[in-house]
């Protein structure tokens, strides 16, 4: 087909939502910096990562809602 590449809707919404979640993104980046030199392998940034992604998910879900019926 000669159409341009279809843009994945979810990625598009996630990119649009990134500005809303800058605070979480910054705190994640700060964590990454903090644990950079870590050798023990026990330090990780899962908390900040989850905060960021749940913020993005909430924002994305405000744009879409999975209909309960079999549309």
């Amino acid at each position, binding site marked *: 087909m000669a*159409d341009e*590449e*279809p*843009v*994945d*809707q*979810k*990625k598009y919404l996630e990119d649009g939502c990134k500005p809303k979640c800058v605070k979480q993104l910054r705190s*994640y980046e700060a*964590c*990454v910096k903090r*644990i950079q030199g*870590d050798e023990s*392998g026990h*330090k*990780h*940034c*899962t908390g*900040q*990562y*989850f905060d960021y*992604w749940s913020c993005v*998910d909430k924002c994305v879900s405000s744009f879409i809602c*999975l209909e*309960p*019926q*079999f*549309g």
Partner: protein
Amino acid sequence: MIRIRRGHQVYQQVCASCHSMSLISFRDLVGVAYTEEETKTMAAEIEVVDGPNDEGEMFTRPGKLSDRFPQPYANEAAARFANGGAYPPDLSLITKARHNGQNYVFALLTGYHDPPAGVTIREGLHYNPYFPGGAIAMPKMLIDGALEYEDGTPATEAQMGKDVVTFLSWAAEPEMEERKLMGFKWIFLLSLALLQAAYYRRLRWSVLKSRRLVLDVVN
């Protein structure tokens, strides 16, 4: 309905190589996702072991509407062996078998991201923040353009995710729409009946509730 059809195409082309759906038969699709002829043709493409015949031997024949969906592996052990020890779960009831099933499956399928800093996943597993524990054996399967829909809809990741979740929800709860309509109807009717019963009870009891009792002195 068209979404269930597309979802079935996603299942068949992307998922069926590892995931069984052993509780669904081809005839369940008739009238929902495909016509009877289309479903018969689809069923006839697979080989089914049947028998024994008059000579006592098992034989293979093309599939019929009454056959269940084909299983990718003969048993759980074969499935685990082929997938590095992990068993791809049967998907017939998956949206009911997971909390918030529809949203969970969609998020899982479309939510493969890089792991957070400090988290390493061993060889053979993949990071998925929605999977409990974070390390899932299934790689990211829904990739833009992974398949061509029959009806020409662009096959983006989110589109395939939503279609396959609709298909899986239908497979787990085909009666959902009818059940909910029945629920609305009967809850409405029974609440009318409740109001009527409450009124009638208060009407009959009003005689006693409006009694006056007097304590008096006996002279």
